[in-house]
């Protein structure tokens, strides 16, 4: 099998489905089902027949290491979850796309179901990209698809506002990124990360221009992963975008940003690199600011979706902290800690967004108060959501704790005590705002308690995620083995 065959078949199918949609021949639901089937098939193909060799002609810009596989799996899984979630959310999309929602039940849904495939394609290529051009092209494929998806509900002011904000700040970040890449290329004369590493480790002249390029790249990617001070777009875009897209942004886009950041940072932090200490400092400062801001700003939120946006920022902070640590003796390299964290972040975040999406489609607003008493009327959803929130807060024996645990451990081993203290403050604040929602779920409703029902696909997905949160929390080696496979 060619190393790109899964990606290519996803891309071709996405285009085919878009085409099919424009002829109005098939019911929209079957497009979603086709997408789900495709993604499951791709996931199976990825697991049973891993290709490890990359032909020499491709090796310049494409690599297939363990990490790449792991992120490809994450990309497929999150796209799958998003599609399932979109099925729940379909009525809301129809309502805000169609001029006459009563008549046209399916308006706009075809594109909404098939566009995520293109995002997935971009993320999968990005996982393997190891040269500046590939990184840029795949990153833009993801970002441009998101421009469409975020502003998809064209009759909703919130969605449009989110789209414009995302477009402008996305363009700005792309500009910074390209500028940084240009500097890097100008300084080293290389496009491949390996070549750049080689140049940086044998650097002779002043390292100020190198640092400038590094800062630009980190700033550009900082926008993608929502690091402070590049997080300004996050709350509004998260709140305005259709919920499945928000979930996708929060997990998929973040994972994609972090795989690139990992590769780029690895280049800068290579042994004997001329700029390693400064880049580490930069990352540490970003991490601490992100943890503090994300957690403290989340305290005051009353809207569940917006709160999750701040929570997403705070988790980016922990991820950045992991990236900034060397963690000698931990058994997990920094990039593996990041991958682990993202893998644990996926199920807990998706459970929250799944409930939000289904609730919104069934007429429940996104304010925390409107979820009061949910655990009494829908005990299973209440339990899943409680578990997911506890995991987000980092309670032990859940997957969320293991991620934080590894980050804390790495910071301890590195002696980054200041960032450790800040992480503790952040996590303590996290206890408050996640538990606030747990409390609302279990308290007595003021008026009528909300009832949320899920369709079969979402139920299966939610059950899988619940199992994943508990199993990974108790048996973290499951993911550890995936990350260490073949080493």
């Amino acid at each position: 099998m060619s190393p790109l065959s899964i990606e290519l078949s996803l891309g071709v199918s996405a285009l085919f489905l878009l085409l099919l949609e424009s002829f109005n021949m098939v019911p929209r639901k079957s497009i979603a089902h086709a997408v789900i089937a495709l993604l499951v098939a791709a996931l199976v193909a990825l697991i049973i027949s891993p290709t490890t060799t990359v032909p020499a002609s491709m090796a310049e810009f494409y690599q297939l290491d363990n990490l790449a596989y792991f992120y490809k799996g994450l990309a497929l899984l999150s796209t799958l979850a998003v599609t399932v979630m979109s099925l729940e959310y379909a009525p809301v999309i129809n309502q805000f796309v169609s001029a006459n929602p009563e008549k046209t039940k399916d308006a706009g849904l075809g594109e909404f179901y098939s566009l995520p495939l293109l995002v997935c394609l971009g993320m999968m290529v990005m996982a393997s990209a190891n040269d500046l051009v590939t990184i840029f092209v795949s990153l833009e494929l993801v970002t441009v698809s998101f421009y469409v998806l975020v502003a998809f509900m064209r009759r909703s002011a919130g969605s449009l506002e989110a789209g414009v904000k995302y477009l402008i700040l996305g363009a700005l970040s792309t500009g910074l990124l390209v500028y940084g890449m240009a500097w890097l290329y100008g300084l080293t004369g290389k496009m491949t990360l390996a070549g750049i590493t080689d140049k940086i480790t044998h650097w002779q002249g002043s390292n100020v221009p190198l640092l400038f390029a590094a800062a630009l790249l980190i700033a550009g990617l900082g926008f993608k992963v929502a690091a402070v001070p590049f997080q300004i777009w996050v709350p509004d875009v998260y709140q305005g975008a259709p919920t499945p897209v928000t979930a996708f942004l929060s997990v998929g886009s973040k994972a994609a940003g972090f795989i690139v950041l990992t590769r780029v940072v690895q280049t800068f932090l290579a042994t004997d690199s001329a700029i390693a200490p400064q880049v580490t400092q930069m990352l540490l400062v970003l991490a601490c600011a992100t943890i503090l801001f994300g957690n403290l700003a989340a305290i005051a939120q009353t809207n569940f979706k917006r709160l999750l946006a701040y929570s997403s920022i705070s988790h980016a902070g922990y991820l950045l902290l992991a990236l900034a640590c060397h963690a000698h003796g931990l058994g997990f390299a920094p990039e593996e800690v990041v991958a682990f964290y993202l893998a644990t972040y996926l199920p807990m975040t998706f459970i929250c967004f799944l409930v939000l999406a289904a609730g919104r489609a069934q007429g429940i607003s996104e304010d925390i108060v409107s979820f009061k008493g949910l655990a009494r009327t829908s005990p299973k959803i209440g339990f899943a959501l409680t578990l997911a929130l506890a995991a987000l807060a980092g309670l032990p024996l859940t997957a969320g704790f293991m991620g934080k645990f590894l980050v804390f451990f790495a910071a301890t081993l590195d002696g980054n005590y200041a960032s450790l203290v800040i992480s503790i403050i952040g996590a303590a604040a996290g206890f408050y705002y996640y538990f606030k929602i747990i409390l609302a779920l279990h308290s007595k409703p003021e008026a009528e308690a909300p009832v949320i029902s899920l369709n079969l696909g979402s139920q299966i997905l939610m059950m899988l995620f619940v199992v994943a949160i508990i199993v990974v929390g108790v048996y973290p080696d499951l993911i550890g083995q995936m990350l260490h496979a073949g080493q």
Partner: protein
Amino acid sequence: MSPLEIIILLPIIAALAIWLGAPARFTAVAASLLNLAVTVGLIGGYASAGGAMVWKSSHLVLSNPAIHFAVGADGISLAMTLLTMLVTTAAIWSIVDKDRIYYIASLLISAGALGAFLSTDIFFIFAFHELALIPTFLMIALYGHGDRKAAAWKITIYLGTGSLVLLTGLLGVVWLCSPDSGMTFDLAALHPFIGNDKTGWWGTSCFFTLLLGFGTLVSLFPFHDWAAPAYASAPTPVAMLHAGVLKKFGLYGLIRIALPLFPGVVQTPWIQHALLLMLLGNILVVGYVTLHQRRLDEMLANSSVMHMGYIFLGLAAGNALGVNGALVLMFAHGISIALLFMLCGKLRNHLSTLEMDKLGGLAANAPFLGVVFGIAAFASIGLPGLANFAGELLVFLGTFQSFAWDKGFTMLHITTILSLLGVIISAVYMLRAYRKIFFGEAATGLFMSDPVIAQRVPMFLLAAVLLVIGCHPASLLNLIQDSLAALNIK
């Protein structure tokens, strides 16, 4: 499968069954009685082991750093398990006419405590303790009394932050004490940290972090602010389990992890002095606060914070006598405070107020309650013949073991003498409460009769344990002292 794994899993399975619709009271009581029986059986079978860890079982859950789901029990953990199961059984038994969430929460808190006491891997010792955080939070916030929301937030944020501090301390332990072969969380594989002039600093600061982390969980002054409001407002079973059992986890952790792995560090002057000052805060400051409480629940809540000081005193002595005393006192205090909270809950159910000035003469109609309250209150003061006395005596003897005439009084001895004042303070407030509530003139409209026979069983159980251990402390000491010696606490 080790019997210990069954003990840990049984309450979780029972909670799950109740959540799925099994009859709540029957399942919960049956599960806790079964667990109690298994625990007693194991203690009977342990006698010959001579302080070693037995019934070990271990499953690898993460290879590097090495984390195992490892269980094992020695005399100390068996004593704590017995305490947990006695209090759990009594707490669950005493739940009357409540939602099933009461049973689920009690079982989960119990499972968390059992897991923490029976694990032999630092990771799971820590993790299991946190299992109790959500049930405690929800129970206080939803079903508590008084200013319940504030109390629930306070306990959750305090304990959450305390655990994070503790976590960094534990990570430090793993870093400092792991064998050369790699990082491990397995307690048996960790070796004691012996620092030299240069590295000793690491040991002391790690120990101090542990002290702060564990201390917060035990309401060590000045990190005690969460405890009194939380216990005063918690629903009865939660107050019993948290004050009686869960709070002992921090002390257990110090004895199990901090003292053996950092031998002698507790006697480092600055650490010992800091600890002595903090525990004096518990005994004298909180004791003074307790004197001025007007409501029974608030008085009991504060007294449970105050009595932690004596246990810390035993740990501060750092010798076998003191730590033995601390362990006996942990056990005795757990039983006595749980019994007091159970009685307080009964009173709350029947009376419109718990203000002691408004009550009186209850013993006339409720002689059984009067007797049991008397036993628990006397135990809590430390009257000879009841379990707490044995513990306190050992603690005081332990601190004075190092006394030498030529060196005069050290800080440790002065603290001990000052903390004897605390005994008087607790006698004052306990006896005053006993007199005001059960004797004197009956208040109009505020009276209650004894509970039905079935509800007297748990009270009788706990009171009997206080008497048995009090008259024959050796039965408990024999269980724990070999294991303490095996931990190298001399």
